[in-house]
């Protein structure tokens, strides 16, 4: 059974000159227009686009068509600005589409922003009622679920205290508890993973799982691919306001990550004339080598630096220091020391799969001769490792500098 049907949905935003914000400015513009002069509000050097029909607009969404069946958990992914939030805003009726239509069967509720309309001066109890009503519940409904909401939120003792005295954690928990008890037929979840502590995230996603298990429909927007992969069945990939791909969630995530191919990776190459180094050591390149379009925690890869040695028999070992983005050293590993022939050399560091954690890393190369650094190549190259987990109930950031899976574990 189809519960959401989106047809030819487009949303247009006006750009630039729309908000002159003051009446005087608009009067000026109007007068200028009447006299056939240039719009005084236009940026200098930009031709007056008010005369053109379409130049001043941007399409945030263009010709979006999709259907969602009952009980489906649909992941909507895409880069920032791809139009994910706009779709959700239209679905939750916060803003109207420019063209096209959305048909919905059943009550729709969103966990877009929990705690909307909470008033700091009111007690937890009063806020439950107010927030519930804003989200579309009747008083009777809220009264019926009140105990459950309080239980779920875990703030029972403080329910008669104004929420301004709450810790931010309690506040969010209470707000979420209300939203979670809406019992909508269709639930919209947007980036909740960005807020709250680990326990809270678990609660949110647990609730989402419950909801989908009960055969209700969920739309999930997130940048957390681990969560999307574990929770969703189908997916939509948005790009520049258009649907690029609709498929099962696996291929969608692959395509999404492909959009970032090469993005988090900085490979460097130099010519002999501009090569960093010394008279003896000149660096030709520093890069990573891997199969596919991106490095995940399950991808083996090589960190490589190539350099010219200008002195016959110069003794060198290349010592590679890997730094994370917080400037912590992850590890330092060195090649053996050999007396180099004059010419091009290549140092390769073989990183196995399932050793590194996800994140950004910088490579620093030491060219060491006789146990003293001859040349230090800072930030020689950089790369990003993307997380990839299956069958997990924990979607947050995996902590630690490394995630070595050769460590054998045993629980008796």
């Amino acid at each position, binding site marked *: 059974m189809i519960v959401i*049907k989106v047809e030819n949905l487009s949303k247009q*935003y*006006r750009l630039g000159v*729309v*908000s002159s*914000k*003051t*009446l*005087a400015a*608009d009067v000026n513009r109007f007068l200028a227009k009447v006299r056939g002069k240039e719009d005084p509000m236009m940026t200098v050097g930009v031709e007056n686009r008010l005369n053109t029909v379409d130049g001043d607009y941007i399409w945030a969404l263009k010709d979006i068509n999709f259907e969602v069946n009952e009980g489906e958990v649909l992941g909507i992914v895409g880069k920032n600005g791809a139009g994910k939030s706009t779709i959700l*805003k*239209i*679905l*939750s*009726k*916060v*803003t*109207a*589409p*420019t*063209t*096209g*239509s*959305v*048909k*919905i*069967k*059943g*009550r*729709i509720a*969103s966990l*877009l*922003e929990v705690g*909307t*309309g909470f*008033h700091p*001066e*009111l007690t937890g109890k*009063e806020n439950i*009622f*107010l927030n519930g*009503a*804003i*989200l*579309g*519940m*009747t*008083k009777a409904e809220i009264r019926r679920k009140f105990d459950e909401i309080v239980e779920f939120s875990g703030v029972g003792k403080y329910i008669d205290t104004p929420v301004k005295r709450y810790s931010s954690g309690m506040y969010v928990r209470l707000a979420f508890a209300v939203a979670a008890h809406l019992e909508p037929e269709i639930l919209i979840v947007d980036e909740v993973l960005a807020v709250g502590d680990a326990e809270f995230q678990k609660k949110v996603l647990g609730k989402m799982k419950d909801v989908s298990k009960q055969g209700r429909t969920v739309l999930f927007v997130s940048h957390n691919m681990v969560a999307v992969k574990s929770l969703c069945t189908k997916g939509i990939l948005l790009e520049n306001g258009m649907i690029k791909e609709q498929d099962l969630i696996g291929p969608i995530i692959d395509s999404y990550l492909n959009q970032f191919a090469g993005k988090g990776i900085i490979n460097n190459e130099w010519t002999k004339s501009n090569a960093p180094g010394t008279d003896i050591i000149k660096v030709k390149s520093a890069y990573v080598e891997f199969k596919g379009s991106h490095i995940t925690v399950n991808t083996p890869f090589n960190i490589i630096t190539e350099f010219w040695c200008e002195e016959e028999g110069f003794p060198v070992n290349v010592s590679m220091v890997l730094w994370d983005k917080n400037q912590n050293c992850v590890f330092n590993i060195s090649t053996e020391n050999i007396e180099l022939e004059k010419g091009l050399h290549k140092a390769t560091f073989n990183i196995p799969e399932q050793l590194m954690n996800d994140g950004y890393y910088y490579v620093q190369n030491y060219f060491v001769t006789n146990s003293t650094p001859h040349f230090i190549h800072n930030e020689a190259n950089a790369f990003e490792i993307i997380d990839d987990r299956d069958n997990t109930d924990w979607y947050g950031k995996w902590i630690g500098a490394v995630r070595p899976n050769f460590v054998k574990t045993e629980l008796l």
Partner: protein
Amino acid sequence: MKGEDKYWTEVILPKKGNFDLRLHELWHFKDLLSLLVRRDFVSVYKQTVLGPAWYFIQPLLTTLMMWVVFSKIAHISTDSLPPVLFYLIGNIAWSYFAACLNKTSNTFIANAGIFGKVYFPRLIIPLSTVVSSLFAFFTQLILFAGFLIYYVYQGFDFHVNIGLLVIPYFIFLMALLGLGMGIIISSLTTKYRDLSFLLVFGVQLYMYITPVIYPVSSISVELRKYILLNPMTSVIEGFRYAFLGKGMLDFGQIMYTTVFSIVVLLIGVLIFNKVERNFMDTV
């Protein structure tokens, strides 16, 4: 096609009818209305020293000032009524109207946060302000009753009259007009912020062309027809007639105010409805 329409509970389209108020939806959210009123009620004077006493202090100080300036210094007529009663009732009625107008006029700007996140019929917010402002109004009316009793005891000649029966209707008219004007302004302020500055003294100026500090009877005949064009004139005069026995209770004028208020409200709803759909894109 008809059957398919029934299948969906909600169809979101780019435009809806200008007067499609979705009253059933408004009805569904009636509990929200009462909870918002309750919120205003509970929260407004929290953490103030004097609390609800402010409801008394505001009209009392204004009345005192008017008495000194307009009666003692400027010698403006109070229709031979005790100045305190004359100014107090005018003030109380006027401040309800002004509150409706002022508070509803920033609906969109003040609630942009909520409006950007959840959908509920936006009209609920100005409606709730109009209702919650009644609390201050009635509290002040009790204050007035106290003064009235005192003055009657002192020999002021007061007779219960038919005007008292019309008071609820006057309140309704003020709510209607304040709401109508307020939502027009709130819709326009989403685009023109300077209107909110204009409003502050606009309301003040409006009070001076409304017979709050002078009676219509003191106005010359040729000026009077202009004063009568003001829809608030019959309301303030009616209040005075009902509570003090002097003033104006004119059926024609009340009908004029009624029609005027309804037209303003309709225009307001029209603009509000239009702005409501897309104001999130311009704020």
